[in-house]
């Protein structure tokens, strides 16, 4: 028993030294294909592969953490993790609180998902996840906005008739529409947001420079485009 304890202690210590440069990546884990929890209970998706590759290129040891979308910015700012990698679009409002790296996806059009094509998205009841660019767009478009804490709940609201349609990133809605015969994507697209970037604390300029360089190198050698195509995120660079 004593030996076992000593070995674990030694292991814990050596592990501590090995991870001298640990960067904690915070994600939501509920927004496929960007990020989701797979059958093994691990974070998976486009951003998982992207984040691991970026950390490799920037020579950082990274650790994945999941956090509720609602409190994802406050927890970054107070230092519970170092990077937000959660399909977060770059907007001016968010930029006032945190910093963004350069975008790693093209501005992805948002789309409406509805039971039928004849929904009036200008005056109907539209669901969106709270605190997203889509929610603020709906609020200013004249339609009635209903907000939900998770992406899943915003789609469930359309299924059970609480809302006429849901507005979200097209890449997220596409696999849902393919699976569910009762729901279809409307043709109308909305262009909002400036693409998705990593969110960092404004004081973390050094880390931001490292990730910016890593994203640039992935853009240059085409590996980012390969990932975007693999996960069907949208337009390539």
């Amino acid at each position, binding site marked *: 028993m004593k030996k076992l304890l000593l070995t674990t202690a030694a292991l*814990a210590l050596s*592990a*501590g030294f090995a*991870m*001298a*440069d*640990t960067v*904690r990546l915070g994600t939501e*884990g*509920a927004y*496929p*294909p960007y990020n*989701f*929890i*797979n*059958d*093994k*209970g*691990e974070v*998976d*998706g486009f951003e998982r592969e992207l984040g691991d590759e970026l950390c490799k290129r920037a020579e950082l040891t990274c*650790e994945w*953490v*999941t*956090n*509720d979308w609602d*409190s994802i910015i*406050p*927890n970054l*700012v*107070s*230092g*519970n993790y*170092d990077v937000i990698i959660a399909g977060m679009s770059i907007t001016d409002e968010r930029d006032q*609180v*945190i910093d963004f790296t350069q975008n790693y996806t093209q501005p992805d059009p948002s789309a409406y998902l509805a039971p039928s094509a004849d929904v009036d998205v200008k005056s109907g009841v539209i669901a969106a996840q709270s605190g997203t660019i889509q929610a603020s767009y709906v609020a200013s478009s004249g339609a009635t906005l209903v907000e939900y804490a*998770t992406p*899943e709940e915003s*789609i*469930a609201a359309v*299924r059970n008739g609480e809302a006429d349609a849901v507005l979200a990133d097209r890449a997220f809605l596409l*696999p*849902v529409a393919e*699976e569910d015969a009762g729901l279809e994507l409307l043709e109308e697209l909305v262009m909002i947001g400036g693409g998705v970037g990593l969110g960092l*604390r*404004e*004081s973390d300029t050094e880390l931001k420079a490292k990730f910016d360089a890593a994203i640039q190198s992935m853009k240059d050698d085409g590996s980012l485009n390969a990932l975007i195509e693999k996960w069907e995120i949208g337009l390539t660079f």
Partner: protein
Amino acid sequence: MFAFCSDPASLDGLAWISCYLTTSKHLQLYYAVGTVLLLLAITAPAALAFGFGGAMAARAHLAPLRWFGKSYIAVVRGVPDIAFFLFFVIALDQAFEWTRHQILCPDWDQPIRQGNDFVVCQAAKLPLGTAPQWVHETYGFALAVLTFAIVFGAFAANVLFGAMRAVPRAQMETAEAYGMSRRQAFWRIMVPQMWVYALPGLGNLWMVLIKATPLLFLLGVEDIVYWARELGATANPRFTDYPHGDWRMWYFLGLMVFYLGFTRVSEVMLERLMQRLTFGQATTGGEAQRKAA
């Protein structure tokens, strides 16, 4: 988990269910049940200790101590739980880090508050940025226990404060007549007798505490409600080997059975405890027991 689970798409019926319910993701749900039970097992005695301390402070003869006890009860009981959990925990965490920062990094020249950011030196981080994930999780869990203990401790303090006053005054006078000091009378006469008055209130608190555990997710601890929501969400065949529709209803039904079963067991246990505490007491319950015997 089982050998035949390698190709879930070819399975159906019971085999599929048994594979589905034993994915690593489901194991985390079962693990979360353990987390919740552990939290209750640690929080309940801790909250009782906070409550006892609070009640004693509120009865103290020393005025500042009495003010402290009374304001603890009044303030914590008055603040909404969610506000308390969101604000207090971040503040507590930052207070720890600030203190460590002052001690460990005296020659740090940058401000700690930079705009929105709370920046302390690497050595002052709690837990250290380099610590493995389980340390972070344990730390989060410990913060959760402390917060729950403080919140529920205030309610328990109020219950115990009332229970201490409910012990018949004549009992204390008799103790004093026998020459006991205030301290002796408190520990030997009042404390053993007050539990029977406190138990209904404490039992209520226990029931509320059981149901308050979903607040854990606000603190970053993944509890059973989080996993039920996550596992019940529509599973798209592109992202999982076990596709299914919106099954949240079934998962929440399971949770309901769990919580109802748990509260029912608690009720039975509390009833038994009440029987025991009533024995020989000068209450109507005690009187009924005496007559029945």
